[in-house]
């Protein structure tokens, strides 16, 4: 991994200032917990706030995101899965599964342990029809734009999901 000119935090701050990502900060309760970070590409942010499926579905998406940030158990294929098959298998792309109907996937990668960057979303049925490669290509492209000098972190799921520790 090449050293960057900016620290990771400075780089993230710049991306936020440039509105290229934003952090999902749950705000329902005063004692909200945040032990992992979840960065959202504007497209994913828009999806969580105003999905085509309506207000109720948007709330479910936000609840999943909040649960991730709060440290709920995502070490489970039903919630988070590493895309391990195909030519781009095991490069670190993971999908967060949005529960209940309609079933969507949010794809991205881990920048550091406990820090996920969500870069795209797609409906499961469309993925079944057209395959994952188009969205994989998009995720790779967006990652490269945001973090040109970093690869997605590739580690066991339990390690990736551990409490964010602010590592460089």
């Amino acid at each position, binding site marked *: 991994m090449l050293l960057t000119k900016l620290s990771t*935090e400075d780089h*993230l*701050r710049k991306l*936020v200032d440039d509105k290229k990502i*934003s*952090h*999902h*900060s749950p*705000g*329902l*309760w*005063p*004692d*909200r*917990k*945040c*032990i*992992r*970070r979840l960065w959202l590409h504007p497209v994913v942010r828009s999806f969580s*706030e105003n999905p085509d499926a309506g*207000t*109720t579905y*948007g*709330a*479910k998406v*936000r*609840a*999943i995101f*909040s*649960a991730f*940030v709060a440290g*709920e*158990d995502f070490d*489970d294929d*039903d*919630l988070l899965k590493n895309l391990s098959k195909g030519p781009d298998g095991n490069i670190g792309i993971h999908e967060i*599964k949005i*529960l*209940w109907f309609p*079933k969507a996937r949010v794809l991205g990668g881990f920048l550091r342990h*406990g*820090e996920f960057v969500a870069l795209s979303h797609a409906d499961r049925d469309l993925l079944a029809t057209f395959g994952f490669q188009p969205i994989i290509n998009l995720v790779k492209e967006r990652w490269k734009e945001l973090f040109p000098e970093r690869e997605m972190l590739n580690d066991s799921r339990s390690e990736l999901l551990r*409490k*964010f520790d*602010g590592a460089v």
Partner: protein
Amino acid sequence: MARFELLELDDEQQSDFKADGRLRAFFTLKKAFKERARDGVTVGSLAEAIGRDKGQISKVLSGKSGITLDTFILLMCALGFRLSFVAERVEHMRPHNWTAEPYAAPRLTGNMGLTTLAMRTNSSTTSNSSTRVLVGSNG
């Protein structure tokens, strides 16, 4: 003593609180099942215990299907867990000492959530609808 003011929940807030509650129930059920699975409990045996179809219970546990409160209670009981509905007062909730939230301010939306409600009950003056709470920013 400050009076408690009920928060009138708009459509988005109602959806958010319902989704939050349902997801908490899901994770509670999931955790209970995983604990018992270590002792050999299977989806099939759990379904049989409450007289339901295995496929249906499998969908519930994987998040592919919703669940009624009655079924949730039955599953938890069958797994050997007694549900305890302890309500927490929002005015007693305090931010955690540590947070992974980055320096960026929390997302401010039209959904005030009960964060604002907590401020209202602790404040000596009535807050207006634009009151916000910024919680847990890193230094």
